[in-house]
């Protein structure tokens, strides 16, 4: 048997990744936090923490609560803002090896467009991920992501403001995610990222205080994996646009589930908090699995579910 090279490339519209595994926004900082701990070069892409036009301080503590097989967060998009990002974070990110995907969040349509324009000219950015699904901010975020028409408007605004590939990140907290996906896909974006966190809450039974300063936050982790997988499956069958899977992925078996459900690539989120090398381990395990299957390219697994 000739040992053909396994092709791990993932094509997300105009964005081509060397590997189909990325870090998820907000769970890997700007890469530098994990430099000494993770073989960064192995990853397909690093997706940054969400960036807004101006710096944001985020929500009051506590911002984190543990839940069964997962966690709630209400960070509230604390970030240094566009300018400091370009100055302090982007140069380091560029050198790390993986593609650089910048997650952006605005309060208004114009914010999104302005972020897209600025990042277009920045150099060293490989794609934008448009966050219209963050449950932790007052304006923007989720409000855009729950309405197909508004979601499409944001997508179109970003699309028209940059030559960079554009991914749009969807919320599962809607009646019909396929409807949002169709509307966004119609704007010609390069990829749909499913899913952001689910809105959730926890209360300390003894004190009666909510476990998050902001009361309601976003649920992530293995707990939400079945919801994320269903979302990927539903969206992938509805649109031709590439789908990226995220939600509770922590090992290669999880990644295989998402690829089979129709994702062309996956993101590893809060699994990194348990084990910083989670994303790299997902990738290595996936490679071994594909070699064992004897397929030539990772893309052959995409959509391979036996219905």
């Amino acid at each position, binding site marked *: 048997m000739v040992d053909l090279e396994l092709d791990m490339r993932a094509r997300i519209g105009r964005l081509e990744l060397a590997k189909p595994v990325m870090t998820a926004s907000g769970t*890997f*900082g700007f890469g530098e936090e994990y430099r*000494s701990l993770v073989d960064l070069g192995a990853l397909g892409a690093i997706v940054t923490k969400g960036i807004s036009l101006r710096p944001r301080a985020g929500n009051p*503590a*506590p911002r*984190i609560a543990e839940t069964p097989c997962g966690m709630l*967060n209400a*960070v509230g998009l604390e970030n240094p803002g566009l300018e400091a990002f370009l100055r302090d974070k982007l140069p380091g990110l560029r050198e790390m090896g993986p593609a650089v995907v910048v997650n952006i969040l605005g309060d208004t349509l114009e914010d999104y467009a302005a972020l897209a324009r600025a990042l277009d000219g920045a150099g060293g950015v490989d794609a934008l991920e448009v966050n219209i699904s963050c449950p932790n901010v007052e304006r923007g975020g989720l409000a855009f992501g729950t309405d197909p028409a508004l979601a499409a408007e944001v997508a179109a605004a970003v699309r028209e403001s940059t030559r960079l590939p554009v991914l749009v990140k969807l919320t599962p907290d809607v009646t019909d995610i396929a409807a949002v996906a169709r509307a966004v896909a119609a704007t010609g974006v390069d990829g749909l990222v499913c899913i952001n966190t689910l809105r959730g809450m926890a209360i300390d039974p003894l004190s009666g205080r909510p476990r998050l300063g902001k009361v309601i936050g976003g649920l992530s982790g293995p707990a939400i994996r079945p919801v994320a997988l269903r979302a990927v499956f539903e969206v992938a069958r509805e649109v031709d646009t590439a789908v990226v899977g995220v939600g509770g992925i922590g090992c290669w078996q999880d990644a295989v589930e998402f690829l089979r459900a129709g994702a062309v690539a996956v993101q590893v989120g809060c699994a990194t908090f*348990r084990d910083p*090398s989670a994303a790299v381990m997902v990738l290595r395990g996936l490679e071994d699995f594909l070699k064992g299957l004897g397929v030539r390219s990772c893309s052959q697994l995409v959509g391979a579910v036996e219905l």
Partner: protein
Amino acid sequence: MKPIRLEAELLDARAVARQMVRLRLRVGPCAIRARPGQFVMLGPLAEGMDPFLNRPFSIHRLEGPEAWELLVAEVGRGTRMLARLEPSARLPVLGPLGSGFEPPAEGELLLVGGGAGVAPLFFLAEDQLARGRRVRLFYGASSADRLVGCEALAARGARVEICTDDGSAGFGGFVTARLEQALGDGSDWLAACGPEPMLRAVTGLARRFGLAAQVSLENRMACGTGACMGCSLLLAGGPRRVCVDGPVFDAREVF
């Protein structure tokens, strides 16, 4: 040093006071490169995904050249699981993390610890004693059966002032009350770790008596490495992450 992640071997887990257990973890030669005030993230704690998050603990003591000691108060599910571990268990550890204390080059060092908050002060005290510095520890606990390691630290040369809320050992009352009596004797630096009201009170005293003060803070953490912004506190100067910008902060920044 940069944090590393390794599978530590649990050398022993010993109950040292009521609902307080001391874990001795063999982490290898990197052990001695930690600085007092730094912490580790321990976990995953179970084979399954529940509990999900790793737990932060201060480095309590260096124990020989290759091991760290942690002092763990049993307060919830994770700490109870840790307290029941059998020797030779493997525990994934990420560390050392965060900033350390920065004591001045001269003068007596006043350390103020409350409850399990005393953990990192032992490391600081022993390190400074080994450098020939004078160290005085004000150690507050709810009662005598919650005190750990006082004799050993005293034997190393520290002056240990015990305070218990119920008066079952040492000074009867809050550690801050005892501290207040003792201040003004010339010390000009203080480090504190413990419950927030204590830190607040200590900071007030430090301000009143003109001492520089460093406090070690706690907050819910997910990553421990600065990546998630989960542990940020909205301090006067803006949001600061407890895990990388702290846990040790200048008291004036905080209160």
